[in-house]
Structure formats: structure tokens, C-alpha cells
């Protein structure tokens, strides 16, 4: 178990990166606290797996350093880092039995057989494969194979960190939930530092103490699920987290008012004049449709998703979403929308701007 420090880390897959665009992973400084569970969230191709492979040593960064508890391991090989990693697609050793698969990382490190047998039994129980221990891994289904991969990742107790690269992609939804719970329990019991890469926000939010959101090779926000929801630091976070994502509307800010096409929205804070692309962001949960209150809006469609209704509407030429309670009656003459002033965030060039008390 170790604290992992990323110091000025950046990576490019090109031999001679010229501009910032050439970097798959842009310069990054971050401490992964010892024993914390992190989720690395972002859309495909945003650099999540690159970052993970740099931490595990499968990839050498173009610049910067990685420290484990202050010890520089930037150029140390994977074996020297003592890290466990589980990949997106199941990796099993086909010709071995399930038992030998699980024992493999321990045997390679020369642990004694009695300890290995006991550890394999424990892990088999955890992943629910005790009955299959003597079967060859080849004939198993994809999700059984992935469970073996997970098991192989967890079989060593003394790892510095456990890395998961979208490990539940091939597992069916019911089993997903169960395995995620198992992973959480494992984290609770042994206190490993865990980093879990995913593009599924539910997975990220349920698994992690802290979620690291990446966008275009950059870490845009690190925070608890609540922070990500209430105060997205970047419009991408607002859009990526939440279902549907945050409404982002171009606006002009003047003090504590945001002007959208001449009409204005109250803000709870006051802002200095902003330059560049200025937008306001409001989560659909904090927008309310009514007959009398707020600004004009054109309702296009109402989708009832069971626990609430999602209203798709047009607001001064922008598409917005509004969430209404399941019980709420939506009538044809409801053509005004109001926003909860305390939950309207202001963005300049996609980054959140902190206001001052009005």
C-alpha cells in the first residue's frame, strides 16, 4: 500500500510531440492517497487507460515522475512496482485450471504452497468459483473468465495499488452490481489504494470515495460524487455526470444577473466582467416548469422515465432539459422555466468561475 504521486506527468504516443494536442495525457500533478478508492471517469479516448498504464509501468511517460511513497519508480519495471491490474477484456491462461490461474501471480513470486492454497480458496469464495477450481479456464464463459482476471488481481495482499481498467464491461448487469460490492468490501477490509477506470458514471459514483474526471487528456475535476454534481468545475463534468447532463446556455454576465437574449436569470453571487465564451450551467434537477414563473420556454417533448419526467424544451434557441417529479402534472400551457439561483454556475471558456457574495 502506498501513496502514489504524479509529478509533472505527461505522455504523448508521438516521438516528438510539438503542441499540446499531441499529448494523450496532458501535464498532471496529483497525489493518490494511500488506501483511498478512486474512480477515473471519462469518455473513451480521454487518456484514462494511458494514465493507468503509466502508473502500472506498462508505459513510460514522456515527461514527469511517478513516486510511490516518495520513491521514484518512473523507470522501474512493472514487476518492481508490485501493482495488480485488471484489464477490460478477460485475460486467462487457457491451458491452466482456474486454480492455477489464481495461484499464478503468487507462484511467480515464490510464495509457499500452503499459503497459496489458502489464498486461492479465499479468492475463489469471493468471486463465487469454488466449484470450478479444477476446471480448465478455456471453456468458461466471458464473465467467468473476467472473474478469474479479477481474482488474479486480488490474490496478492501486499500490492501497492489495485488498478481496474473498465473491468466489468463484459459482465452482465446483475453480476456487475455484485462484483462491484465485492470490490468495495475488499477495499474496506484491506484498505488497498484502488483506481477504477470507467466511463459509466453510476459505476464511478458507487465505487469511489473520490472521482477523477478526465476530459481530452486532462484531469478536469477531482471530487466526491456530491461535489461533481453540485459544482462541476468544467462544463464537461456537468454534461458527463447526471442523467440527463447539465444544461449549458450561452449568456452575458453582469454583476449578479445572467442575460440570455435580453432576458435575465438571477444568480446568487456577483461576478466580475468575464471575457471569452461565457455560459451558465444549470442541472435539470434545478430547473422548474410552470405557467407563470420565469422565462418563456417551448416544450418539445415529455419523457416519463418512471421515477421522474424529463421535459425536453427550447430556451431561446438552446436545447434544455428539465426534470419534474413523477406526480407533477405537465399541462400544455406551462411555458415558463425558472432556475434555482443557488444552483446556477457560471463558466468562462468551459471552466467554472467563482463569484463573490452579492
Amino acid at each position, binding site marked *: 500500500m502506498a501513496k502514489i504521486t504524479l509529478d509533472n506527468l505527461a505522455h504523448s504516443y508521438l516521438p516528438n510531440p510539438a503542441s499540446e494536442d499531441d499529448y494523450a495525457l496532458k501535464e498532471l500533478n496529483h497525489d493518490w492517497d494511500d488506501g483511498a478508492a478512486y474512480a477515473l471517469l471519462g469518455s473513451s479516448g480521454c487518456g484514462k487507460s494511458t494514465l493507468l498504464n503509466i502508473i502500472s*509501468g506498462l508505459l513510460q511517460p514522456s515527461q514527469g515522475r511517478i513516486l510511490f511513497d516518495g520513491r521514484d519508480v518512473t523507470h522501474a519495471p512493472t514487476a518492481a512496482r508490485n501493482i495488480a491490474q485488471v484489464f477490460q477484456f478477460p485475460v486467462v491462461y*487457457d491451458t491452466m485450471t482456474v486454480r492455477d490461474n489464481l495461484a499464478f501471480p503468487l507462484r511467480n513470486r515464490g510464495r509457499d504452497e500452503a499459503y497459496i492454497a489458502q489464498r486461492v480458496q479465499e479468492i475463489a469464495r469471493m468471486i463465487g468459483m469454488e466449484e470450478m477450481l479444477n476446471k480448465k479456464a478455456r471453456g468458461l464463459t466471458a464473465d467467468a473468465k473476467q472473474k478469474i482476471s479479477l481474482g488474479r488481481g486480488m490474490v496478492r495482499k501486499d500490492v501497492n495499488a489495485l488498478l481496474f481498467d473498465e473491468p466489468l464491461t463484459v459482465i452482465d448487469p446483475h453480476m456487475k452490481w455484485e462484483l462491484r460490492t465485492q470490490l468495495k468490501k475488499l477495499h474496506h477490509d484491506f484498505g488497498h489504494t484502488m483506481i477504477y477506470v470507467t466511463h459509466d458514471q453510476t459505476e464511478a459514483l458507487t465505487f469511489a470515495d473520490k472521482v477523477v474526471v478526465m476530459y481530452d487528456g486532462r484531469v478536469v475535476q477531482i471530487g466526491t460524487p456530491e461535489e461533481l454534481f453540485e459544482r462541476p468545475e468544467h462544463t464537461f463534468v456537468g454534461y458527463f455526470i447526471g442523467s440527463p447532463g447539465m444544461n449549458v446556455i450561452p449568456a452575458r454576465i453582469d454583476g449578479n444577473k445572467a442575460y440570455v437574449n435580453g432576458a435575465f436569470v438571477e444568480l446568487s453571487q456577483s461576478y466580475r466582467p468575464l471575457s471569452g465564451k461565457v455560459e451558465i450551467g444549470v442541472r435539470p434537477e434545478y430547473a422548474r416548469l410552470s405557467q407563470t414563473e420565469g422565462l418563456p420556454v417551448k416544450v418539445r417533448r415529455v419523457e416519463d422515465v418512471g421515477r421522474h419526467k424529463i421535459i425536453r424544451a427550447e430556451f431561446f434557441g438552446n436545447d434544455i432539459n428539465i426534470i419534474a417529479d413523477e406526480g407533477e402534472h405537465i399541462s400544455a400551457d406551462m411555458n415558463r422555466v425558472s432556475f434555482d439561483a443557488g444552483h446556477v454556475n457560471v463558466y468562462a471558456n468551459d471552466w467554472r468561475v467563482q463569484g463573490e457574495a452579492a
Partner: protein
Amino acid sequence: MEKTVNQKAWFLVLPVLLLVAFSAVIPLMTVVNYSVQDTFGNNQFFWAGLDWFREMLSSDRMWNALGRQLAFSGIILAIEVPLGIFVALNMPKSGFWASLCLVLMSLPLLIPWNVVGTIWQIFGRVDIGLLGYTLDAMGVSYNYTQDTLAAWITIVTMDVWHWTSLVALLAYAGLKSIPDAYYQAAKIDQASRWKVFRFIELPKMMGVLMIAILLRFMDSFMIYTEPFVVTGGGPGNATTLLSIDLVKMALGQFDLGPAAAFSIMYFLVILLISWVFYTVMTNLDRKGA
């Protein structure tokens, strides 16, 4: 579900039937026909029953040729398969050098058999051949026309030179199909290079290696042109492999009956070995699952 009965559908099978009949069944049957008859010329044939088979089975000539043939196939498989795998493992994975390797390695496969034979025949000659002359100058006694061992080394080396590429290319294709994640997982699991080979690369190559071994076995078991051009089966009968012996018997001595019996048994041996090999391998495969 009710099947539609339409006897006219048989006509659709007819072209294939005719083709197979003319290309395989009829030629094979003429051989069968010769093998059970005897002739004293004049196009007169007499029923001989299984006499030729009995005679061939009790003749040392065929057994010796079969022994040499099995030794030849065994030796070249024992060299070409491990060597091919070794070459494939050490080839560049991608880029310009990978393509260059592929092209260079394919070259021997494109050379006609008799040309390969001629190349080695000249290459090995003590008077003008680069290899033979050099060895001779170095004081190594090497003369494939007189020395049995030298003749065997020459034809085995020639076959290895000609065909190792095939095994290497097939093994390379097998290696290329292994996803990176396997190697990464092996690193995480701290597997040694040997274990990576034993538990990842070899199992993933098994399918193509099987094909490579079968192809090389059948091909080498039927080899004729190359050793015939180099040694003509000599010195003595030292490199007279099965097909060389068969041609001598059928076309040299014009012993049609014994030669026909010989070819049928030759064919059955190939069929039998391939079948045993295939069955054993697929059974191993199934037991693994």
C-alpha cells in the same frame, strides 16, 4: 418442418461428382486395377489377387525406403517447427522491418522445387559450389555424392532452408493474434519469459502450428523433386525416399503391379498417420476444454 422432396436436385450435384470422378476416383481405380494384375507385355493382363501386396510387404526394399522416409520427415519436423517458432518470436512486430522480413522469408517458398534442387546441387559441389568448395578448402571432408552423412545433411538443410519460412509465417500469424493485454497481464503477474511462451504464446499458436505440422509432414512424406535433383537417391540407396523408389519401380523398371501395390500402401500410410495425428490433437484440444 416438412422437407421438400425434389429428385431433380440430384442433377445439381452431378458436375461435382463428374469432376471428382475424373480427377480422383478414376485415376485411383486404375492404380487399384494394376495392383491386382500381372502383365507380360502385349497388353495382356492376368489376375494376380493380393500377390503384389504380399510381395511388397515382404520386400526389404520398401521397408528400407519407408524407414528412410520416416527418418527424413521426423528430422525436418524436429528442426523446422522449433526453428520456425524461434524465428517468429524474434521477428519485429510491426513497421517496415516486419514487412521486409515477411517478404524475404516468403522468397524460398516461391522457388520451384526443381530449381531449389538445382541451387543446392550446385551450391554443394566440391569443384564449383560455394559451400562444397569452401568446406573442402577448410579441410572438412564433404561430398554428398559419395558420403551418406553428407548427402543427408545436404537434403535436410535444403528442406529446412526451403520450408522453415512456412512454419515461421504461420507461427507469426498466430503470435500476431494475441492481444497486448495478455502480455501486460503477464508482466503484472510477474511471469518469466519462459512462462509467457509456455502459457500464452504456445497455447495461442497451437491451432496454426497444428496446420504447419500437418502440411510439413504430408509434404515431406511425398517429397520427390528436390532430393532427386541433388542426389538422385544416392549414394547407393542412402537418400532413396519413398516416392523416389516408387518412380524407379514404376517408370524405371516398369513393374506396374508391384508399383501400384506400393502406391496404394504409400497412400494408406499417409492417410493413417495424418488421421492419427489429427485425432490425437483434436482429442487433446477437447480434453483441455
